[in-house]
């Protein structure tokens, strides 16, 4: 089905930012595509992302992030083609993102690292605040948002996020944001495809992980120190 949201966002991004930087990172579509029914996708092509939670700026950030962290190569397609962005959006829109199973009563103190997560933020709010703060840092440093900077600059930003070298003014601790980002990218890449990521089980194929396959009783000795002939099976494949 057509994705009005994505098309509109790409259109707006192109219109507002324009120029070579935008052209390098935005999938340009023929102008008329906005109004038309798209041609049927060829088999295997990823569906366009539709977002439940992420706004335009956040979606652009997440798409750029997952494509940078998981670039296309011989092992797998790139992050957005694996649907990691879709996974993250759904996770943030769903119960987990809204703080399911999270104790959310104050008073709020930061304590010491051994005491764990202590922010008054559900994961979706943490993500939102962290993206805004990262983009503010990028604008201050490079004059552009994260999705508009070049690959080397993105690499620098991720290194600084992961090492806690950026300070978010009036925002959440950067290490906590990075921890949430990294964990959700891993979930979107390696979780079952029913959640929107790991499209076509590509990440499982990359590892040789057989997925939801049920029984190895007869395999334990037979395949000891031998490659297991692996075509991964997902929950949907068995349903």
């Amino acid at each position, binding site marked *: 089905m057509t994705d009005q949201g994505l098309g509109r966002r790409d259109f707006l991004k192109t219109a507002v930012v324009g120029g070579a930087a935008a052209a390098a990172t935005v999938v340009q579509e023929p102008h008329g595509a906005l109004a038309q029914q798209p041609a049927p996708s060829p088999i295997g092509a990823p569906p366009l992302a539709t977002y439940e939670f992420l706004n335009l700026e956040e979606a652009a950030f997440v798409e750029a992030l997952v494509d*940078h*962290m*998981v*670039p296309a190569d011989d*092992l*797998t397609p790139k992050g957005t083609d694996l649907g990691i962005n879709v996974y993250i959006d759904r996770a943030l829109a769903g119960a*987990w993102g809204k*703080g*399911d*199973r*999270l*104790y*959310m*009563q104050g*008073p709020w*103190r930061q*304590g*010491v*690292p*051994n*005491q*764990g*997560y*202590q922010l008054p933020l559900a994961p979706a709010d943490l993500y939102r605040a962290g993206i805004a703060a990262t983009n503010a840092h990028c604008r201050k440093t490079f004059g552009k948002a994260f999705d508009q900077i070049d690959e080397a600059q993105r*690499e620098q930003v*991720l290194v600084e996020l*992961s090492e806690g070298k950026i300070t978010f003014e009036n925002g959440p601790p950067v290490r906590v944001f990075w921890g949430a980002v990294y964990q959700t*990218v*891993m*979930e979107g890449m*390696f*979780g*079952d495809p*029913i*959640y929107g990521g790991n499209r076509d089980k590509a*990440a*499982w194929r*990359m*590892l*040789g*992980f*057989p*997925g*939801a*396959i*049920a*029984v*190895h*009783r007869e*395999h*334990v000795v037979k*395949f*000891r*120190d*031998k490659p*297991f002939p692996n075509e991964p*099976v*997902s*929950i949907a494949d*068995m349903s």
Partner: protein
Amino acid sequence: MVTKLKEVDVVVVGLGWTGGILSKELAEAGLKVVALERGAMRTSENDYSLPNIRDELRFAVHKDLMMNTARDTLTIRNNPSQEALPMRRLGSFLPGEVVGGAAVHWSGHTWRWTDMELKVRSMYEERYGKKFIPEGMTIQDWGVTYAELEPYYDRFEYTAAVSGKAGNLNGQIQAGGNPFEAPRKREYPLPPLTQILSGVMFSEAATNAGYHPFPRPSANASQAYTNPDGAKFGACQYCGYCQKYGCEANAKGSPHVAVIPLAMRNPNFEMRTNSWVTKILKASDGKRVTGVTYTNVLNGEEFEQPAGMVLLCAYALHNVHLLLLSGIGQPYDPETQTGVIGKNYCYQTGTGATLFFEGRRFNPFMASGGTNVTFDDFNVNWAFDRGPHAFVGAYNVSAAHNGGAPIEYRPLPRGTPQWGKAWKAARAKWYQGAMNIGASGTVMANRYNCLDLDPTYRNAFGQPLMRMTFDYTANEQAQIRHAAKVINDLAKAMNPTHLTEAAPRMSWSVVPYQSTHNTGGAIMGTNPRESAVNRYLQSWDCHNLFVFGACAFPHNSSYNPTGPVGALTYWALDAITSRYVKNPEPLVHA
């Protein structure tokens, strides 16, 4: 408005291993038993079936079967000078919250704790002298011996479908088993699980180093099995989804397979799920309890359930919380070292190395909860002289995979990039080529490691959260440094392509998962001054209240706690049915 219900003989608070065993046995003994479980009903057929149980995100990452910390949690701190803060989500340990409790999602490791634990103070004092025990280490004997518990260990192993190899049958050392274990009267009910590559390699290296490896005993049925009560188990499929998941094959020794269905067939038994016990009610004379109050969490209705006996069978920490909330027993004060409820809270320590072997195919996803190989040369081997190393305690060393679900299983050599093409290539290369060697170590009781009520934070029922104060002392640090060296020497001898060496754990963090082996807080012992319950787990204060589970352990061994949890339950059950029911009074006179 609290609705008062009709009195029953026994109310069981919490329906996991201990509540399941007691419900079945006491209903069969002719008592009217009501079990109150805060979680919901879950069955293998409906909830742990294929393909949906094979969902790492839902069960392992988002912890579908476990305690919901939005409703009730603990506050935690490392020492009394800190302000305790809420454990806002699960991490270090994972209590269960369904019918079957944490024993639905456990791995199955089932050990017999020996007199080295049960007589800890007297054995160390006898061998090393009183001064060897550091100041502030509040270890004490349990009041029960291995010889007394042996038949009950046996009964639990046969109930829970434990697979293993005996190492000591009636004093005769058996090839292939643990030569350091205490003597057992007969073999395990099932032969050990098939070893996987990492276990085979570890076993060979440990043997070459002069250690005595053996297959870890575990309640994962190595073959189809019917237990003495008639409960049927399937054979383990080595599916790699064991710990944190319910078992699709009914091969894991879990109470919702082994005992609860048998209780449910008995008209003397009634189970009420979604029933959250808020308080144990004391009689006006303070010497008995009269029942409990609970809330139906589906509609908020409150009930009083009067009962002739109250059996606390919730998770260890929740039992202690209920005692504190109910004002039963004197709360422990670490400054004056008086009181007993909350005393001797213990956890475990550990360390591990990751070994990377180019070209090996470990197939980490072909594994069971108990496919580990272990050696106990520095554990229940009393011949190992602690004197030169200056620590009280022990550790076991083990290796093998227990599953390879890839959101959480991400072994990479140090220095690997965290993202990008190089990360992907390393991820693809080492997923198959890594294994771990780990140690699990004892935590001896310390005066400042304890549980009490938090002064600030409250749960969904308006009650104070329980506060946990815990850290490792110099004793555990010395012990785990020793373990790290043993592991690293062994790992190097295996000549891996890369090695991430074991580093000793110096301080406790609530964040990463370590083990669901929380012990103490309502400890057993020989007198009411030093313990909350007597050797039959009967409250010293209120004789018709019994407290089960690992909260009764006066300290923590290096082993998983479920073996003695089960054995002590059957041991106390015998005293209840043979003596207490006929003559309801204290079973031990203080």
